[in-house]
């Protein structure tokens, strides 16, 4: 399997090709000499265009041939026009099928989308140059933009482009006017559908921040965290790798009765620091419960689980969130602005991994700007800071040659297997209990017999 979108750009992906083949079958059937459409010469201004048909005829033919309703025929006809197999002669830019006398024509197979003629910039440039030369100022706004962009991008071949445009115009002048108009219409229809996407140079238009501001940021960060960097400042009670004493880790474990001072200080550095520490998050939740806004944090956590969770459980989780947090009258309704709420509710109809992103971002910044600063000023946080321990630096041992025993710690993997083992044991116990009671019942029944 090649993960390469370049292939997709150059040719039509497989699914689309099947559609094109089907559309072509319809078109070919339409042009069948016996059963196909009646075509006549249409008058366009003063010239007579051969082999054209009216919108009304197309729809009638489709209804008859495929036994479908008028609505369906109109829909199918519209698709044929949108993909360029039939093009309108009047108002070429409006790619719609009208059920009236407006004239249409079949596009030549040369220009069919399925021939996968890559609509390159060069061809488009030649087409625009021709148009420009033929009638100065006839280019539309977006065409003018594309023309100048192309002029910049493929400047090295511009002489070739102009030369080709001139030659093609000259050659076409030698044709009959009717043919010429037809050819122009065909080309125009083709390019309306297939104009190549022009990638703009985003890099030049990016927003940049002044260097002095950014660089100050690094200084501040390093200063702030200097005391927390064990390699630079050492750590208390001691660096486990030097003293072989794992006390530092036990004191800073995920859940401890009393956290260390440095840890609590770190919670005040940024909202992200607070949330990424398990204890910090718990403390913040306690604080929010006092303020009756705990549903915000719960909502944020639930959204994180969707973003980083398994693909298979996304819709299930999205439904849970909707029931608990977003539905009108929900138990823990979160306060989101109406625009975001509308967008999210629309997105829930087709749930995907990022459907909650806007709402999650809104709530995150709400907590960050509002609840978080107040938490830092609250008594809850200040008490925690006061209670926090500053570990004593362990004195160097009297016998520096003696190495302390290095204790092992339970592996995180073990915790997971233990949980499953316990579950298994509970289940087993349950089953044994059932068997015992069943046996008792059988004995009881036997006694009666």
């Amino acid at each position, binding site marked *: 399997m090649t*993960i390469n979108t370049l292939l997709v750009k150059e040719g039509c992906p497989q699914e689309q090709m099947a559609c094109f083949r089907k559309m072509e079958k319809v078109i070919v059937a339409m042009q069948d*000499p016996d059963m196909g459409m009646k075509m006549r010469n249409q008058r366009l201004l003063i010239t007579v265009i051969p082999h054209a048909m009216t919108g009304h005829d197309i729809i009638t033919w489709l209804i008859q041939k495929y036994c479908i309703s008028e609505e369906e025929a109109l829909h199918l006809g519209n698709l044929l026009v949108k993909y360029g197999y039939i093009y309108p002669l009047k108002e070429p830019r409006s790619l719609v099928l009208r059920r009236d006398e407006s004239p249409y024509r079949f596009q*030549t*197979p040369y220009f069919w989308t399925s021939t*996968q003629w890559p609509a390159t910039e*060069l061809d488009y440039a030649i087409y625009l140059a021709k148009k420009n030369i033929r009638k100065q100022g006839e280019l539309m706004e977006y065409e003018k933009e594309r023309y100048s962009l192309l002029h910049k991008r493929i400047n090295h071949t511009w002489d070739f482009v102009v030369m080709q445009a001139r030659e093609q115009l000259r050659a076409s002048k030698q044709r009959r006017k009717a043919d010429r108009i037809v050819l122009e219409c065909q080309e125009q229809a083709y390019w309306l559908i297939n104009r190549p996407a022009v990638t703009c140079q985003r890099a030049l238009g*990016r927003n940049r921040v002044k260097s002095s501001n950014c660089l100050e940021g690094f200084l501040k960060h390093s200063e702030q965290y200097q005391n927390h960097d*064990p390699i630079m400042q050492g750590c208390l009670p001691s660096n486990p790798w030097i003293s072989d004493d794992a006390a530092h880790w036990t004191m800073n474990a995920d859940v401890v009765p009393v956290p260390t001072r440095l840890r609590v200080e770190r919670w005040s550095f940024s909202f992200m620091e607070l949330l990424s520490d398990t204890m910090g998050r718990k403390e913040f939740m306690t604080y929010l419960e006092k303020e009756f806004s705990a549903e915000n944090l719960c909502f944020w956590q639930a959204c994180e689980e969707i973003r*980083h969770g398994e693909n298979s459980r996304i819709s299930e989780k999205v439904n849970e969130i909707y029931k608990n947090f977003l539905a009108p009258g929900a138990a823990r309704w979160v306060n989101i602005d109406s625009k975001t709420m509308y967008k999210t509710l629309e997105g829930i109809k087709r749930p995907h991994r990022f459907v909650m992103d806007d709402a999650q971002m809104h709530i995150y910044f709400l907590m960050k700007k509002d609840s978080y600063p107040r938490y830092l000023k609250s008594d809850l946080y200040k008490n925690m800071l006061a209670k926090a321990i500053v570990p004593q630096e362990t004195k160097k041992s009297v016998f520096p040659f003696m190495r302390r025993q290095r204790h092992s710690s339970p*592996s995180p993997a073990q915790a997971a297997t233990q949980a499953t083992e316990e579950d298994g044991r509970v289940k087993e116990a349950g089953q044994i209990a059932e068997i015992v009671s069943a046996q008792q019942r059988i004995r009881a029944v036997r006694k009666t017999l």
Partner: protein
Amino acid sequence: MCDQTFVAATFGPCENCSTPSPLINIYIKSEPINYCSLCVEMMACQGLQKGESLVSLKRESESLKKKLEEERKKLCDVELNQVAEKIEVLGALSIKTRRVLKGHGNKVLCMDWCKDKRRLVSSSQDGKLIVWDAFTLNKEHGVSLPCTWIMTCAYAPSGCAVACGGLDNKCSVIPLSMDRNENLAAKKKSVAMHTNYVSGCTFTNSDMQLLTSSGDGTCALWDVESGQLLQSFHGHTADVLSLDLAPSETGNTFVSGGCDMKANVWDMRSGQNIQSFESHESDINCVKYYPSGDAFASASDDATCRFYDLRADREVAVYQKDSIVFGASTVDFSLSGRLLFAGYNDYTINVWDVLKGTRASILFGHENRVSRVRVSPDGTALCSASWDNTLRWATDFVTENK
């Protein structure tokens, strides 16, 4: 009844390359010629050669690059070492090796720390993956994989699984189990499939998603449970050698560096390349984010490490010395971001002062090139993996005066 007659030719063999394809009618000196579009383009470029076109093309791309540099320079009002003049010079660092892990039979190519701050996983050229408790020096799990050259490994955030990948073009996830009798290799699950070697992998914020970079020039995001490709990232024009996830609030971006000398920043949701930096003179071997997420560092074969600021959108520091000749293969920041540890192919590790741009220390000890350097999650120690089959732990002996 269709208008085939109005166009000179439709399908057929091209008069230049003979492949059957839709032909374009061209007029050269009033002579109609039928070429396929590819030949037309080639001819258009060649026809104007006159010894000038390739040069003029190059000139155009150079002028665009210059314009971009000018735009970037407009906001560059001060340099990092100027701003850093007001902070103190670093005290002398006394970093010594505290542990040496021996157990691999061949070159150690990669290692990663577990979130519990003392366990790690390392992979080597002989196809072995070992999970160690580095504190007690115990080997907790050992997996033998059929493929040699396991170029990358990663520990899952929960600590219950590891991922590894390499020359087998795949990245697999192995759940860790404490059962001694279980054959871990049998429970290996292939998640990522590339068309060339896998050079880097990392779990995103959970065990459920895996981000990989590959020699086929792409990076990809995978769902671990189903093995489905969630997003792919195209833009590098050569092998991608390394990637790192951004520690940001929104958690949506990552940076990758490759053999095309470019470091690209990507948006994980849309797959788009948000920013690109091209100032290295050779392959970028490793990229790592600064702890705040506003910048990243890169190590390259041109013997320099560079520091890029994402908000200012430019390179702000280059860490190089005339005495350092060999390429840098790996970088990592200390917890505060003040120190940058870089491992080189001349068997040393240089410690740089990120802000002042000077070298703070140099560590010796390895007997072959250093393949990976990683600071532990709580910043207490530095682990370095090397082609001399060992892993070393080093930490700073802070002096009494501090």
